[in-house]
């Protein structure tokens, strides 16, 4: 069976039909760019009608800490699993809009300061209790917004009120057009309040949701088993779930996960590693595997702390951008042939992708880089306080993983060729992450304790949510790792927060991307490739729909709705 690049196969065809000129333009641009997946469309979709029954085993990348919203540390692995026993209130459709899924409706008031969510009637949790507005409110008050919750940031300035048995309002302290996207993921996974209270400290190990599968057992670091929910609320009687059972197995070693798949121990697996995707492509070409690749908004980056001299000067930042060959970085990361060049926070398939910004993004030009750098170095008033003519020195900090070590060798060589002294250091994940945030005692708080850092950024959410915290005022936003913020950024973020007109929002996003091209707070190092690999016979991995039949977002971030997958011998 040929490999099946899901995003391109389903996404492009549907967009052309459903979403008019804008998306068509994006499609044509993306196709013309020839980004990895797009040339490979035309592979067959699901064959035949859905079939019930069977059990599958899915290999995922990592174990999670807990399944309780507010505590769960979500990554692709956790979301793939959690959305079998939890139902999301909203999901993204294939055109990237957040639409109700478990919720029946989610409507704003005129100025987007209040969002009214209505639940479907008759939905029950797996413990038999009903999903009501009061349960949603208890979830919100007692778990999602308590100080120890890791979702408290989602709901800063938001209050919830119960209107009737099935209706709540989210009352915002200021307008937010993008509010529905805040409910994507754990913030919008209702759970049984009775079960959570009953289990207490062990609630995270005993999830009770409304989802298509019922949580059966969990042996940490070994397996989690879910079984079919026969009382699922889906409007059609012969609808999902189709499988009887799913076993999820965390296999942290990438090569072992692929080997387990090849040995027939897994029916499907998940990866975000370029070298594994390359091997899986070979297996797909031989017909032993079907693969569903996704390339979205996420990408590898070097983030520059714009508060630290000499990186507080845009000439230096631009010089660093022009001084790196992105293709070399992609190659060093092991993503050659898998991850395309990135130029902005939106991938070519995103409606907010800007061709103009892509053209304006600095490409490898050592001469231009040297000119900009010399201009700074010879400046009598240079920001680092060193005498004119003195070379600059940069500390580059990355994770202690082979990919980052390889990438930093390229960085050291190419920036070194410009006369920059590059000092490399490596840390494990927690230390690396925490140095990016910094401490509340610094001035401004959370200014970050680094100069240049390897990072990953870009999300499949509304551009306001993707960018507001990354580039909000440095003194208010710990997540603004680069500490880059100015009047233009503030102005365009305000448009994205308050303006619902698509054209105005696209223009604002484009203005931001063009501004970043000139100010260079972030240097891109290629897109992040995602992939689900499955054995032939596993159907409909990327074709899941909403209850009303609207096509979902496919395998974004290598996450799918396993409830709508079935086994076929064809």
């Amino acid at each position: 069976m040929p490999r099946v690049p899901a995003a391109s196969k389903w996404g492009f065809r549907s967009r052309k039909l459903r979403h008019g000129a804008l998306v068509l333009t994006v499609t044509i641009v993306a196709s013309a760019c020839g980004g990895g997946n797009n040339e490979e469309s035309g592979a067959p979709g699901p064959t035949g009608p859905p079939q019930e029954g069977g059990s599958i085993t899915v290999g995922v990348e990592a174990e999670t800490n807990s399944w309780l919203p507010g505590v769960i540390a979500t990554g692709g692995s956790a979301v793939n699993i959690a959305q079998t026993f939890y139902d999301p209130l909203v999901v993204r459709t294939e055109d990237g809009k957040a639409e109700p899924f478990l919720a029946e409706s989610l409507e704003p008031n005129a100025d987007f300061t209040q969002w009214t969510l209505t639940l479907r009637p008759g939905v029950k949790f797996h413990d038999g209790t009903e999903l009501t507005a009061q349960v949603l409110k208890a979830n919100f008050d007692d778990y999602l917004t308590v100080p120890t919750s890791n979702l408290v940031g989602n709901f800063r300035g938001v209050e919830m009120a119960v209107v009737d048995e099935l209706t709540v309002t989210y009352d915002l302290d200021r307008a937010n057009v993008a509010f529905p996207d805040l409910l994507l993921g754990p913030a919008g996974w209702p759970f049984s309040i009775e079960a959570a209270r009953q289990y207490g400290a062990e609630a995270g190990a005993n999830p009770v949701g409304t989802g298509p599968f019922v949580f059966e057992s969990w042996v940490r670091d070994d397996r989690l088993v879910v079984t079919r929910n026969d009382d699922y609320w889906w409007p059609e009687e012969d609808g999902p779930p189709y499988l009887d059972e799913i076993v999820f197995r965390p296999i942290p070693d990438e090569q072992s996960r692929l080997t387990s798949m090849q040995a027939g121990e897994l029916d499907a697996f998940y990866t975000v590693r370029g070298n594994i995707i390359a091997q899986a492509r070979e297996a797909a070409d031989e017909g032993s595997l079907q693969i569903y690749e996704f390339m979205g908004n996420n990408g590898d980056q070097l983030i520059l702390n714009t508060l630290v001299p000499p990186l507080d000067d845009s000439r230096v930042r631009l010089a660093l951008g022009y001084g790196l060959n992105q293709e070399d970085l992609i190659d060093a990361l092991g993503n050659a042939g898998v991850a395309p060049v990135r130029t902005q926070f939106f991938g070519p398939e995103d409606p907010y992708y800007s061709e103009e910004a892509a053209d304006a993004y600095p490409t490898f030009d050592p001469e231009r880089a040297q000119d900009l750098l010399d201009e700074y170095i010879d400046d009598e008033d240079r920001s680092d306080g060193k005498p004119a003519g003195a070379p600059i020195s940069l500390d580059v900090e990355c994770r202690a993983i082979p990919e980052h070590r390889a990438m930093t060798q390229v960085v050291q060589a190419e920036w070194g060729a410009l006369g920059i002294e590059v000092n490399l250091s490596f840390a494990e994940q927690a230390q690396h992450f925490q140095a990016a945030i910094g401490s509340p005692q610094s001035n401004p708080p959370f200014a970050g304790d680094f100069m240049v850092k390897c990072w990953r950024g870009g999300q499949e959410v509304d551009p306001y949510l993707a960018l507001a915290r990354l580039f909000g005022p440095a003194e208010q936003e710990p997540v603004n790792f680069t500490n880059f913020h100015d009047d233009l950024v503030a102005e365009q973020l305000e448009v994205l927060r308050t303006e619902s007109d698509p054209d105005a929002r696209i223009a604002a996003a484009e203005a931001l991307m063009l501004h970043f091209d000139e100010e260079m707070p972030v240097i891109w190092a290629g897109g992040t490739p995602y992939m689900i690999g499955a054995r032939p016979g596993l159907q409909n991995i990327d074709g899941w729909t909403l209850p009303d039949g609207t096509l979902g977002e496919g395998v974004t971030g290598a996450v799918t709705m396993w409830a709508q997958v079935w086994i076929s011998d064809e």
Partner: protein
Amino acid sequence: MARVITQKALRLAFVLLAVSFLTYILVDLLPGDPVLQLIGAQNVSAENIAAIRADLRLDEPLALRYANWLGDALTGDLGRSYQSGQTVTDSILQRLPVTFEIAILSLLITLLVAIPLGAISAYQAGGIIDKIVTGMTFGLLSVPNFILALLLLFVFALQLDVLPATGWTPFTVDPVANIKAALLPAMTLAAANIAISTRLLRSDMIATLQEDHVLMARSKGLPTWRILFRHVLRPSSFSLLTVTGLEIGRLLGGAVIVEEIFAVPGVGRLLLDSIYQRDLVIVQGVVLFIAVVFVMVNFLVDLLYSSLDPRIRSGAAHASA
């Protein structure tokens, strides 16, 4: 003998106390804040950090926290994970059977291979078999265990399809599948130990073979196998016993890389994940557990010396007389 055991037990208690204190301090000094790790980037604020720090009692002085922790630990309460809410004791007990089984299987493989190889090698020192065994042991020592693990995966799981590549089946669910799941991790862990044990046993047995009682046994016309395994092995096994004791302690602490590659839910993975997540309560609990195992096993090895060698028993008796 009772006095010796009492003295050793007192020393053991002191060692454990020192290990627990040093571990507590070292873990506290680890770069990286458990609160930041817990809260996630999107939710960081000075107020949230302070609230969680207070909730976890991380705002108390180190000495007070250690005293509280030690008091609880002595009553069997090692605390609850910051990240999962699971008790540390449950976390360890859930994984211990897996690590224990792999460790025992690995030791069995080691001894079953190393003892005959070491004996034959010593008996034919300098001969062709000795050279082959020496070459093989150096080969095993020079291959990193993660490379060996991938090689074994390729051969036994992918090519021969006789053993599972990854995963774990409890013995109570399916004994055959359980042994199959444990074999590849155990073989990987055994490889380097086989090499070390074979080399040690060979050199000790070569020395023992020169002794008078062996000459006496030969002159009596005893068969070679009986001389080697009855009269030479026992007095030559002290180094092997010491290394095996250390190895048991190490293996029961979990073999991180091997557990990661074969995706088995052992103590090593628990420790590694907890370090990455700055889940300090788990780290302290697991390290204390490993220290207890290590010290206890070596305590038992010390006692075994005296049952293997009557001279140690009589020495102890003289000392107490």
